[in-house]
Structure formats: C-alpha cells, structure tokens
C-alpha cells in the first residue's frame, strides 16, 4: 500500500522499521504470556477451595463500563495516530490525552472492582481460583498502568520535540501496545466474565 514516498514519518528510517517489527515480535511474546494465564485460569476456574466462585462475585455493570471505556480509548488512540499521520500535532495530543484519561478511568474502576472482590471474601490468598483471577486481571491492569506512564512520557516528548521520526515512531508503537491491551481485555471480558456469569 505504501511506497517510499508516501511512507508515514514513523516508518521513515531503517531503525524505525526495525523498532516497529521488533515490537510486533514482542506482541507475539505477550500473546503467549496471556495465553499461559488463560490456560491456568481455565484449569483453576472451578477450584474455589473454601472461597467464592466466579458467578458469586462478578457483577456486570463495572465490567461493561470497563469494556466500553477501553474500547473507546482504543478508538481515540486510533484517531490520534490518524491525526499524527496528517501532521496535526495538536489534534494528536488531544486524542492521546483523552486515551490516557480513559485508561486512568479504567484503572480506577478496576481498583474499585478489586476492593469489591476482597470485601466479598475473594482475596489473592483465598483460593486457586481467586489467585489466578486477580493475577490475570492484575497483569492486564499492570500493563495498562505501565502504558499510562509510557504514554505520558511520549506526550512530553511530542510537546517538546514535535512530530519527528523518533517521536512518531514511539507514538505508533505505543498505539500498537494500547490496541493489544484492548484485544487482551476483549478475551478477559468474554472468557473470564461473560463465560463465568453465563
């Protein structure tokens, strides 16, 4: 689709191309990381020991809200990259800021959800099921939190240095990361929550 003239800025140098490919490979590794968590989750799902089972503690509203927030943030960062490719730095900064704010809201909700679980008697140490549930969700949440800081650092650089081959490259890679976290959440939403409440 793209030949050399129409190459967006984030692909403009050899190193940039390497970075993007390298990050895709990293996403491959992340797929395996979450696959391992899912495999463990499915195996420990029914091993509730003395603690509560999934259907006892899951509630649909925060989960639904989290899902829509994350989906929207995935959309806004998509718009951010679109704006970046058009060279509209201001718009891009706005979209990235919105994305990070949505991410923050997601994390806030997730923290609320976790405290709710602990109140329901489903702490990390309760049973095999709660251990893997909170670890799977926590791993995703930790990724999002890491993403918040990463995104913030990128915004600072964009503000200071403008849209250069380096900053656009970093932003594009960050958008890949963010979309990937959205994909992971879709699977958590479907096969942890919905399957658990079905």
């Amino acid at each position, binding site marked *: 689709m793209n030949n050399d003239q129409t190459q967006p800025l984030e692909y403009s140098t050899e190193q940039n191309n390497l970075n993007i490919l390298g990050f895709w490979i990293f996403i491959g590794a992340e797929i395996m990381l979450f696959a391992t968590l899912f495999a463990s989750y499915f195996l420990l799902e*029914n*091993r*509730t*020991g*003395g603690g509560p*089972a999934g259907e006892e503690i899951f509630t649909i509203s925060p989960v639904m809200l989290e899902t829509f927030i994350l989906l929207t943030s995935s959309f806004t960062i998509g718009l951010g990259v679109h704006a970046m490719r058009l060279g509209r730095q201001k718009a891009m900064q706005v979209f990235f800021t919105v994305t990070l704010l949505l991410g923050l809201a997601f994390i806030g909700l997730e923290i609320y959800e976790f405290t709710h679980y602990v109140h329901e008697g489903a702490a990390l140490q309760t049973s095999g099921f709660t251990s893997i549930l909170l670890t799977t969700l926590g791993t995703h949440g930790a990724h999002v939190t890491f993403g918040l800081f990463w995104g913030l650092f990128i915004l600072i650089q964009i503000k200071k240095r403008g849209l250069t081959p380096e900053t656009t490259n970093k932003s594009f890679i960050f958008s890949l990361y963010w979309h990937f976290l959205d994909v992971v959440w879709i699977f958590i939403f479907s096969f942890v929550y919905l399957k658990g409440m079905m």
Partner: protein
Amino acid sequence: MKMKWAFLTIVFTAFSILSGCDLLVLDPKGPQAETQADVIKLSIGIMSVIVVVVFAILIYILVKYRASKQPDDYEPPHIEGNPIVETIIVAVPILIVTFLSIVSVQSNYAVESAPTGYEEKEPLVIYASSSNWKWHFSYPEQDIETVNYLYIPTDRPLEFRLYSYGPITSFWIPQLGGQKYAMADMITTLHLAADVPGEYMGRNANFSGKGFAKNTFNVKAVSQDDFDEWVDEVKETADPITEERFDELLEPGHLGQLTFNGTHLDFMPPPMKHGSSMEEGDHEEMNME
C-alpha cells in the same frame, strides 16, 4: 578407525543390556511389566538397527573420503541434494515412527486397563498413599493397613489407588509394572498383577526431599491361601490404627515396617478421583480433621 572403537563400545553396551536379563525392568513378574519389557526390547532392537546403519555409513565415508586418501588436486563436487535420497531419508523414519506409534498406543492402552489374563477376576483394591518418606497401604476389603511393605496375592489383579500426603511421589514396583504419580489432590489408578510368588523391590521414584533415597517398600507376592493366612494373622495380632496414631505416622521421617488393624480411610478419606470444585470440599474436610 577411531570410530570403530566407539562403535564397539556401543555394541558392547547394547549387547549387555539385551543379555542382562537380570535387570529388574527386563525381568518381569507380572503381565503389565511383561508388556513393557516387550516394548522395551522391541524398541531396543529397532533402534539398534538404526544405530548400526548410521555407524556403518559414517565409518564408510570417513574411511573413504579422508583428505589424506584423496589426491591433492581433488576438489569435491557441489551437490544440492537428490529428491530420491531425500524421499528415502524422510520416508523410512516415518515408517519406523508409524510402526512404533502403533505399538506405543496399543501398549499404553494395555497397561492402563486390567492386566491381560486377569480380566475376569475381581481386582484387589489397595490404597497406596505416601507421606514423607513412607508408604501407607490400606486394604479396605480386608480392613487392614501396612506401612512400608505390601503383601499381595498372586493370580489376582491389583488395583492401586495412589495419593500423597505431601510432595508428588511415584509408586513403582519395576518387576510388576511401570510407575505412576501419587498426588495430594487426586487419586490415580495403577493396574498391576503378579504372576509368580516372590519378593520385589518397590519405591517412590519421584524426588520428594531429604528422605527420598530411602523411600522404599518391600513387596511380597504369595499365593491366595498364604495371603488369606497372613490377613488372618494380622487381624489377630495387629494393633488397631487410630487417628492419633496415624497423625504420628504422617510426621516426616523414616519408619520400619508396621501393621495395623483397620484403615485410615475411615477417618481420613482419600481425595476423589480427579480434583474439581465439588470434590474439593471432601479434600477440605480431610485437611480439617
């Protein structure tokens, strides 16, 4: 020439394994172990052929194409590969592997089901549980329990139900059949049978900590009559097993051979067949008591 030396070593080793029929695994005393020994011997045979072929080719090539035997101006040819040769080196291994796969699947189903020749007979169920570093054998039918030794009747299939009060262990009587794990949260089943009376070595084969090396037990296979006699004797002479006594037995350490009336299954039921949420409850109870 130098390769020949290595070759001879290997032939010697293979030969000594094949001829050394006093090796426990190759000296089976029950149908399961026999199946396994047959599989092992068959595979050693086929594999030896492969090894010999590879060795022969290697030695031939090394002798023929050494630089010292070539004229100085000999320049080796450029050969990309040959479809026929490559087909052969793919097809032959596939044939061998297919054959071995069939053998493997068949024999695996054989050792996982009731021993051949014993299908009609009612199996003797023995619960074998391990604790650091002992084996407890409960005979629910006879209502007796032993520690670190097994008495079994010949001519009757045995169904061992394995579980562990601690690390994963592996119940193994080489001359009667291969091993299987004993774990804390589920029961595994091992089908064995003894054809001939005798004393056999049994042990935990899976590393389980400090006392692992001496985590062995003695197996005595006797005729049904002798077995019944032994049971009667135990019933008359042995102390009953109590919960307190059993808790003491579970303490880490080594014990000699012990015999009890009654089994611990009454007050400490074993985990269910394969742990899942429903069965987990039983397990909890077991721990609480």
